[in-house]
C-alpha cells in the first residue's frame, strides 16, 4: 500500500523536530537554594501581584522549617490541612528535642500522607508544579523540595452529552478534566494495551494532551505521525481541542473535516477498538479522533446499540437525506428554471401558479430563504434558552407563512428550504453537516447560473476532491473508493455484530480478527 508517510511531503518539511522551549522567566534555570527565604523571595518575585498564591511557613523539629506554597482554589485545602499540615504540627508538638534534624526523606515518608509526591530540584519545577495545582513544599536545609498532588476534585460532574444525545445507549459524557475523561475510557477498555501518551502543548497554557490508542490494533505509523504532529505545534495556548485540530488536520483548506470530535466515551472506545487514535485535551469535553473518513460521518452511536435491521434502514434514510440536504434547493432551482419539462405537468402547473406573483428569480428566493434559515439556526444556538422559543415562533410564522402570503417568496421554496433543513439535522456528525451546509450554497449558485449542468460540474468537482482527500493516510472515501468489500459492512448498512469479523484494513496493521466467525445465533430445534 502506498502510504503517504513515504511521500515527499514529509521531506519538504523542516527536518529537525521542534522542541518545546524551556520554561523561561527572570532568574530561572537556577537550582533551589538551601536558604528558604531566598527561595521564597525568588518565588514571590515571580508571582508578583498573584493574590491567589498562598505561602505558609511551618517550623519543624530541630529548628528546621518548611514552606508550603500552593494556588488557592486549585488545591484541596481540607486535604492539605489534614495530610500535610496536621502531621507536621503534631510532630513538632511531640518533639522531645532529642531527635536529629529530620531529613527530607524522613519527612516525605513519615509526615506527608499523600499518594503522589514528586521531588523538585529547581525553581522552574517549583513554579510549574504550583501552576499545575500541586502543593509545593520547600525546606530550609535541603536543595530538593517536594510537590504533593492535592488537586481539588471540584469539577463538573459527568453528565449526559448535549451535542450527541441518544435514546438508547450510555448517558455519560466527557467533562473538562483530562483524567476523568481518560478514566472513563479506561473503564470501558480494561487492557494494558490501551496506551495514553501524555504531552504538554502551549507555552502559556501548558495544556496536557493525551494520545490514546490500542497498541497492536492501531497502526504504528499513524500513531507516530499523530505524535510528531502534536509535538511540532508551537502555540501560546490550547483552550480547546479545536486549537490542536487546526494544526494536525490534513486538508486545512477543504470544507470537509478530517478529524472527528466527540463528547461520548463509548464512541471513543469503539473507535479505539477499530484502530483509530483519540486525542484528549485538558479543559474540554471534546475528544478528537483520527483518522476520520466520510462514512464515519454517517454513523451515529445509536446505530450500534439498536438491532442491525433498524440501524441499516435508518442509515439508508440518512444517506438519502444527506444527499437531499446538499442538493435539494439547487435541484429545485435548476429544474424549475432550466428543465421544467422534467417535471410532471400537474407539478409544473402548481409551481407556476405559486410563482405567478413573486418578484424575485427563483434562485434569489432560494438563496434568501436559505440564508434566513441558517440565521434562524444560528440564532437558536446563540440565544439564551429562555428566549429560544421566540426564534421558532418568528421562524414559523414570519418566515414561513407571512412571507408566502405577502407574496415575497413562493410556497414551494419555503417547503424546499424546510425540507433541506430537516434533512441536514439528520447528519450525526455536526462537522460534516457544516461542510454540506456551505456546499449547498455553492451548489445553489451553480444551479442558478448553469442549471443541471452546473450541478453536475459541482458534484464532479466535489467527488474528485473527496476521493483525493486523505485523513492521516487513510483515503477519505474508503472503504468505498478505494473499495474494500469487507469494510462495506459498516458503511451504508450496519451488518449484525457476528458478521463484522475483521477490523478496517487501512487503519490497522494487517488482518486482525475481531469477532470469530460462526457466531450467528442458531436456536436449537
Amino acid at each position, binding site marked *: 500500500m502506498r502510504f503517504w508517510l513515504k511521500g515527499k511531503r514529509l521531506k519538504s518539511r523542516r527536518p529537525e523536530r521542534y522542541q518545546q522551549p524551556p520554561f523561561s522567566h527572570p532568574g530561572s534555570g537556577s537550582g533551589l537554594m538551601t536558604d528558604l527565604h531566598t527561595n521564597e523571595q525568588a518565588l514571590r518575585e515571580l508571582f508578583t501581584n498573584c493574590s491567589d498564591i498562598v505561602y505558609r511557613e511551618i517550623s519543624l523539629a530541630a529548628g528546621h522549617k518548611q514552606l508550603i506554597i500552593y494556588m488557592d482554589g486549585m488545591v484541596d485545602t481540607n486535604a492539605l490541612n489534614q495530610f500535610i499540615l496536621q502531621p507536621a504540627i503534631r510532630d513538632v508538638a511531640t518533639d522531645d528535642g532529642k531527635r536529629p534534624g529530620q531529613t527530607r526523606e524522613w519527612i516525605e515518608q513519615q509526615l506527608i500522607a499523600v499518594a503522589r509526591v514528586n521531588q523538585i530540584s529547581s525553581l522552574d519545577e517549583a513554579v510549574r508544579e504550583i501552576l499545575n495545582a500541586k502543593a509545593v513544599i520547600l525546606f530550609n536545609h535541603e536543595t530538593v523540595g517536594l510537590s504533593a498532588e492535592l488537586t481539588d476534585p471540584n469539577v463538573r460532574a459527568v453528565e449526559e452529552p448535549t451535542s450527541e444525545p441518544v435514546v438508547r445507549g450510555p448517558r455519560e459524557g466527557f467533562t473538562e478534566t483530562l483524567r476523568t475523561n481518560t478514566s472513563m475510557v479506561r473503564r470501558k477498555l480494561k487492557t494494558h494495551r490501551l496506551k495514553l501518551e501524555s504531552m504538554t502543548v502551549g507555552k502559556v497554557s501548558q495544556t496536557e494532551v493525551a494520545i490514546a490508542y490500542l497498541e497492536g490494533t492501531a497502526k504504528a505509523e499513524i500513531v507516530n505521525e499523530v505524535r510528531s504532529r502534536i509535538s511540532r505545534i508551537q502555540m501560546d495556548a490550547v483552550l480547546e481541542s479545536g486549537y490542536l485540530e487546526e494544526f494536525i488536520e490534513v486538508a486545512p483548506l477543504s470544507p470537509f473535516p478530517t478529524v472527528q470530535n466527540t463528547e461520548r466515551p463509548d464512541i471513543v472506545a469503539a473507535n479505539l477498538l477499530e484502530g483509530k487514535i483519540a486525542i484528549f485535551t485538558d479543559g474540554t469535553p471534546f475528544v478528537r479522533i483520527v483518522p476520520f473518513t466520510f462514512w464515519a460521518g454517517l454513523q451515529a452511536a445509536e446505530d450500534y446499540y439498536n438491532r442491525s435491521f433498524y440501524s441499516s434502514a435508518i442509515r439508508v434514510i440518512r444517506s438519502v437525506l444527506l444527499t437531499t440536504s446538499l442538493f435539494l434547493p439547487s435541484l429545485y432551482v435548476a429544474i424549475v*428554471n432550466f428543465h421544467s419539462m*422534467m417535471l410532471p405537468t400537474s407539478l409544473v402547473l402548481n409551481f*407556476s401558479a405559486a410563482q*405567478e406573483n*413573486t418578484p424575485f428569480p427563483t434562485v434569489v428566493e432560494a438563496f434568501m430563504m436559505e440564508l434566513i434559515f441558517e440565521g434562524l439556526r444560528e440564532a437558536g444556538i446563540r440565544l439564551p434558552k429562555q428566549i429560544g422559543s421566540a426564534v421558532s415562533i418568528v421562524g414559523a410564522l414570519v418566515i414561513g407563512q407571512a412571507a408566502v402570503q405577502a407574496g415575497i417568496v*413562493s410556497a414551494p421554496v419555503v417547503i424546499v428550504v424546510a425540507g433541506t433543513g430537516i434533512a441536514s439535522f439528520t447528519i450525526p456528525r455536526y462537522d460534516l453537516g457544516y461542510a454540506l451546509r456551505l456546499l449547498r450554497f455553492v451548489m445553489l449558485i451553480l444551479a442558478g447560473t448553469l442549471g443541471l449542468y452546473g450541478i453536475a460540474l459541482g458534484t464532479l468537482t466535489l467527488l474528485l476532491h473527496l476521493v483525493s482527500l486523505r485523513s492521516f493516510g487513510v483515503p477519505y472515501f474508503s472503504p468505498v473508493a478505494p473499495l474494500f468489500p469487507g469494510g462495506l459492512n459498516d458503511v451504508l448498512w450496519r451488518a449484525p455484530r457476528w458478521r463484522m469479523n475483521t477490523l478496517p484494513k487501512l487503519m490497522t496493521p494487517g488482518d486482525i480478527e475481531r469477532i470469530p466467525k460462526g457466531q450467528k445465533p442458531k436456536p436449537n430445534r
Partner: protein
Amino acid sequence: MRKKQAGALLLCISLVFVGGCWDSKELNDQALQVGTGIDLNEEGEFVLSNQFSLNSSGPSSEGNSQQESYTEMTKGDNVFKASAAMQARITRKINRGQRTSIAIGEKLAREGLKQIIDIYTRTPEAQLRNDLFIVKGGFAADLLNSSTPFGSLSQREYFKLHQAQKEVADVTLMNMLRSVNGDSQSGAIVPAMERVQAPISGEQKQKKQNKYAYTGVAVINNDLKLVGFLNNEETAKALWLLKRPHIQYASTYIPEGSGLVTAKLSSLKCKIKAGFGENTELHIAMKANAELMENGTNLDLLSVANLKLIEQALELHTRKQFTELIHKVQSEYKTDIFNFGDTIFRYYPSQWRRLQNRWESEFPKAAVTVKVDIKVKRVGLTGGPVQLKEGELEH
C-alpha cells in the same frame, strides 16, 4: 504561478455572470403549452392552435380551484411560421416542454402528415414521445377549444383518456415513424377522437359532458396519409394481430339459445405462417381463452354440449370478423397495418428479400386464412341465467 492560475479561474467564473447568457427562465415568464393541434384551412394554410394553462392570480390557499386555460390560433404557410405568429401573440415565452400530445385534424391528415412531421423531429424542444391523435370528421382546434368536466385543459384530459384506453396510449410520434419508416413498408394506426353523439336524445345539451370520445383508430398509410378509420371492435382485432396488449371481447348471437353471448378473451396468441406461391399466403392461427361475461340465451352453461356450442359460435364469429377486417384493409386501405411484412422479414428473411420492394402491391393480393381456437375457461357464478325458470332452460 499560483496567482496566475487563480486569476485565470476567477476570469472564467466571472464570464458566467458577466456574459449573462443564461438559459434560466422563470416560470412566471413562460406560457406553459399544454396542448397543440394542427389543421388545414380552406386556403391550404396551416392553422396552429395552442392551449395554454392560466394561473389564477395570487396564491390559492384552497387549492381546489380548477386550472384555467385558453386556446390561441394562428395560421401560416408552414408549422414554423404559424408558431412564430403564435409567439408574437403570446405575451410570454412559450414553453413546449409539457406538451404530451399533438392533435391533428382529419383534413390535414388526409392531405398527409409529411409536411408537418419535420418540425416535430428537428427542433430539440420537440418530444418524440408526444402522443398523436386524429380528430375524426373535425378540426383539432375545436377539440382544443372544448372543455371537459374535469377541467378546461381539454387536451390533457383527452391524453388521459388515451391512457385509460391502454391499447392506444402507445402511439407516439416515434412509434408511428418507426412503423412507417422500416423496411416492411407497413402503415400505422393512430388513435382517433370524434365528436360525441348522444345515444338517445340527439344533440347533447348538458354542459358538463365530454364533447369528444375515443372511436377507434385512423389508418395511416406508408406515405403518412390518412386512408380510413377502424371502429373500436376492428381496432381490438387489429391489435390482436399486432400482438399489442389490449382488452378483447367477443360477442355473438347464438340461434340455438336465441340470444347474445359476450365473452372476455384472454391469453391471446397469434401465430402467422407464410407460404410463397404465386401470391403470398398467410395462415394465421389465433388462440384465446374465454371468460363469459354476459349470457343472454337460455342455455345452461353447466352442460358441456352448450359450452361447445358457444365456443364454436364464438370461433365462427371471430373468424368472420378477422376475415372481414383483413379484407377491408387489403381492398380499401391497401396498407399493411398488421405488420405482416415485418413478420415475413423475421421468419422468412430470404423470401422477404424478393418481396421487399413490391410488398406494397403484394399485400392487397395476399391470400389470408384465419383459424380461431377459443376455449371457454370460466362461465361465472351461475349456469343458466337465474331469472329463467327451470323449464325455460336448455340443457
